[in-house]
């Protein structure tokens, strides 16, 4: 009898001990050098609370990771937390009641007051409840230029898109690829959307993707964007690469003149020890229009019945937005912090320019907030084809674009 009692006591102690150290499985798709360094900062901050961040990275980017994450949640085997781009990607999971709302944590930590711009928190909110913890702001509208490549071609480093297009023939002559573009579909769509936001302007983007304005999609503004996209296609001919960081590495080594890629490319430059302004140049808004989109990453928390897990989820949610975490994470990631009150002195020139634009309020919503994944996939199908096949005319592509906008919801 005594033995049984002792056994029961010891198991109770073990159980109580484990209540405070939960292995919380966190799924994300941050696997490149800069990204992995950044995610380690999040893990450290969470581990400091006595829990354990059990890392479950999925290689291959969001389009590979999202189906895996969704099928695990629908299949009844949810992870502790997962990363999505906030916006409409998790919409249906929330509607189906599979994700828990973290409104309590948000109120306790005062997210409403600290998150800047507030549209980030709005993208997490559904029916007045907050379902995700935003961790960073990523903007797409950046042109990364290799100073070395332009030096070799004997042209000054461009200060805007038009100069860049004009310099392309000289780059070609010097044996340099003018524009590096990976073969994955999302990179083609991203390039087009950046041209759309900078050449036509944020209002046009809002009208087409936000309101589904058919007249605008058929109009001359969008036609001009398609002509610019055709020029970009010409410049990108011969980039036989797939991943975005391969394209970035072409820019870093001076084999390519430049790349249009979101500010996450910044992390790769930093990881390689290159200096902004000396080794490479960044042009927010392609040097045409200083605007940045405020997309980004956010963590969502699937519903769990285990009280230990839910406590750990709340702990994680709170730790993600703390000032120290925000600074450490965003410096490594190359993204902007989601709170305006943190000190980012260590930021380099490019990030500072991003922060200035953010402070000035020249922002536009990310396409992930306006479009569903269905629309994005259709756009991917269109643009990956357009940027790889020079026989497609801008007019034909625009007609297809209108068809997609017409069927969007």
């Amino acid at each position, binding site marked *: 009898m005594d033995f049984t009692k002792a056994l029961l006591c010891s198991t109770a102690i073990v159980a109580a001990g484990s209540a405070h150290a939960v292995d919380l499985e966190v799924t994300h798709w941050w696997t490149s050098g800069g990204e992995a360094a950044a995610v380690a900062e999040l893990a450290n901050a969470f581990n400091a609370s006595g829990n354990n961040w059990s890392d479950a990275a999925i290689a291959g980017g969001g*389009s590979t990771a999202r189906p895996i994450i*969704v099928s695990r949640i629908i299949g009844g085997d949810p992870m502790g937390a997962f990363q999505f781009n906030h916006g409409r990607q998790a919409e249906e999971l929330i509607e189906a009641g599979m994700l828990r709302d973290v409104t309590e944590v948000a109120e306790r930590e005062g997210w409403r007051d600290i998150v800047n711009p507030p549209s980030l928190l709005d993208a997490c909110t559904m029916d007045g409840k907050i379902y995700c913890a935003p961790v960073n702001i990523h903007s797409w509208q950046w042109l990364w230029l290799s100073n070395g490549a332009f030096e070799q071609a004997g042209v000054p480093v461009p200060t805007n898109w038009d100069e860049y297009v004009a310099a392309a023939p000289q780059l070609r002559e010097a044996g340099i690829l003018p524009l590096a573009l990976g*073969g994955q579909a999302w990179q083609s769509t991203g390039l087009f959307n950046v041209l759309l936001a900078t050449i036509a302007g944020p209002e046009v983007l809002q009208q087409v993707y936000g309101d589904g304005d058919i007249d605008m999609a058929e109009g001359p503004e969008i036609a001009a964007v398609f002509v610019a996209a055709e020029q970009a296609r010409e410049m990108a001919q011969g980039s*036989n690469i797939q991943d975005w960081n391969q394209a970035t590495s072409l820019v870093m080594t001076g084999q390519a003149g430049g790349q249009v890629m979101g500010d996450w490319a910044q992390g790769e430059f930093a990881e390689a020890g290159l200096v902004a302004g000396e080794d490479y140049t960044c042009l927010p808004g392609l040097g045409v229009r200083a605007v940045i989109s405020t997309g980004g990453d956010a963590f969502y928390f699937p519903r769990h019945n285990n009280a230990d897990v839910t406590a750990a989820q709340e702990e994680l949610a709170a730790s993600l937005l703390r000032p120290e975490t925000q600074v450490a994470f965003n410096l490594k990631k190359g993204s902007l912090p989601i709170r305006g009150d943190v000190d980012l002195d260590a930021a380099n020139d490019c990030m500072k320019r991003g922060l200035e634009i953010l402070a000035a309020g020249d922002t536009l919503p990310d396409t992930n907030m306006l479009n569903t994944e269905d629309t994005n996939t259709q756009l991917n199908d269109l643009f990956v*084809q357009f940027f*790889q*096949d020079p026989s497609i005319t801008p007019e034909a592509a625009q007609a297809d674009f209108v068809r997609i906008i017409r069927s969007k919801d």
Partner: protein
Amino acid sequence: MASRPFYLFRNMMGKLAAIPMVLAVSFVFVGGTLWTVYHSFTSSRLLPRSDFVGLMQYERLWSANRWLVAIENLMIFGTLSLIFTIVVGFLLAVLLDQKIRFEDTFRTILLYPFALSFVVTGLVWQWILNPQFGIQGVVRGWGWESFTFDPLNNPNIVLYGLLIAALWQGTGFVMCLMLAGLRGIDDEIWKASRVDGIPKWKTYLFIVVPMMRPVFITTLVIVASGIVRLYDLVVAQTSGGPGNASQVPSMYVYDYMFQAQNLGQGFAASTMMLLSVLIVLIPWAYLEFGNRKERSNG
């Protein structure tokens, strides 16, 4: 009369043994198929819903450029791969059938690629056909600077890059089936044709091939079903690129079901795939099994 067992209980053991298979077929295959077809008429997104929208998903499907490209690719790839695997497989089998030395060794070498999965095959051929590291790079390294062979980076010929890999992988297997068929031909036939002085190639073409009809049909069904569900080879080798040039229908189904979170569209596409298989399969089954019944009756 009374001692005669009730019809249902005749051959009891056999029926019991078949129950798991019958259940699996009716619930998993037939049930799953009906469920899929049903939901292809709805506007299901991430989760299945019963909100009917008529033929909307099908209209969208057939106006999508990528789907049309995928269908066209499957037609070209399917026809070529069917012809080449069967012709080349048969020729190899005939060559091996000439009572050559080291037949076992050759058979093993030719069959070995079949032991590799499509994913491995795709990756291997992706490297071989890579312009920087593969054949093109090697030949240029020998001094032929202008040599160009980059099927995987050229939208016009990317399908042939896939075809090379598929033939390399699948021909050995077809050869083995054919060889088994050839070995099943009675030696007396050969003796008779030799006595009559018929040339060897004529014997093969007009006597042996018609006698091997069942083997050809088995091969046709196996190869054709492999073509319709072609997915992993493309994903590993080209992931549908460059652009959409090497898309196949099964990739469309996967991408729309899981990436685009649009089940309705994915189900519509998979229903079309099923339909295309049925269009080929039903007339064939009718000819094959319908005739047999008559034959056995007569």
